[in-house]
């Protein structure tokens, strides 16, 4: 499943998608970035409510397939632009993290 296919299936908002063809190979959920850094796996769809610019840095470092901002959280100023320039995909949803994880897991 690609990032684009997952976004379509779950009706996720495309906040910054520069590589919709990237494969989603797994999932991770967490908001404490120091924790996420060492644990999220390459290709994961990362569900979080953290919208700080460092979220993009961590996503890039962990090489996740996309960030999914849950609970209707909006990216901080400049975050979408930074994500586009670094090739990090950001999707958004009004749903809580748990509900999103359940749905993503069902698709994998």
């Amino acid at each position, binding site marked *: 499943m690609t990032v684009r296919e997952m976004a379509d299936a779950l009706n996720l908002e495309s906040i910054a998608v520069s590589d919709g063809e990237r494969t989603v190979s797994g999932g991770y959920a967490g*908001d*404490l*970035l*120091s924790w*996420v*850094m060492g644990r999220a796996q390459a290709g994961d769809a990362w569900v979080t409510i*953290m919208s*700080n*610019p*460092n979220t993009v*840095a*961590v996503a890039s470092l962990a090489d996740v397939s996309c960030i999914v901002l849950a609970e209707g959280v909006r990216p*901080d*100023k400049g975050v979408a632009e930074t994500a586009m320039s670094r090739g990090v995909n950001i999707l958004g949803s009004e749903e809580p993290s748990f509900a999103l994880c359940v749905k993503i897991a069902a698709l994998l």
Partner: protein
Amino acid sequence: MSAFRCDLHIHSCLSPCGEDDMTPFSIAGMAKLNGVEVAALTDHNACGNCGTFFHACETYGVVPVAGMELTTSEDVHLLCLFPLLEDALAFAKAVDRNRVRIRNRAEIFGRQLLIGPDDEATGEEKDLLINATTLSLEDAAALVKEYHGAAVPAHVDREGNGIVAVLGDLPETPAFAAVEYRDGANIVRYEKQYPRLRGKRKIVSSDAHRLWEIAEPGYEIELNCKKDAGAETVRKALIDYLNGV
């Protein structure tokens, strides 16, 4: 330049986690006994006891600093210190509009006592003070600047609510001139692990929630003023120092 013994991060009984006997006069008296020359009152998301704290410090001969430990929307603790009591109170009003209102449950979190000029409780803050505000780090840093203060990421060496633990590293923006450590022994290790911490001015504070936790005799900071310059000048020099001036 003169060295001042400082403790710039102290909670009163207004913070739910601060003990009830952390009244402004008890804090100021203990600071004086310990040899602290400059003491800041920094309750969570509030400055309601800073007025009485100023009275208390003037009584005991300690330089008071009005401040706040602000919880940003990212759950990062930011130490906000101000040159004047009035600046801090105006800042607190602005923060108040950005608080997320949850009723405090004193039996779980602790009481949030407001203390009047005679060091007696005059009231209680009803809504919880420790939860995250809606101010992002960026918003918070701008707001502190607007009220002429200095914003310092608090206890960067703590897992809970420390900026490095929450955000994985010190962010590039907003730019902070100084960072606070809970334990000076952690500085070398943290600077090695997080290069962005290098070159920042460093303060060490007690983050006292109990009387005996107040620093003894305080952590020395070299400020650009004379030793007997008077409280207002010392505070101004402190804020300049923390802002990298």
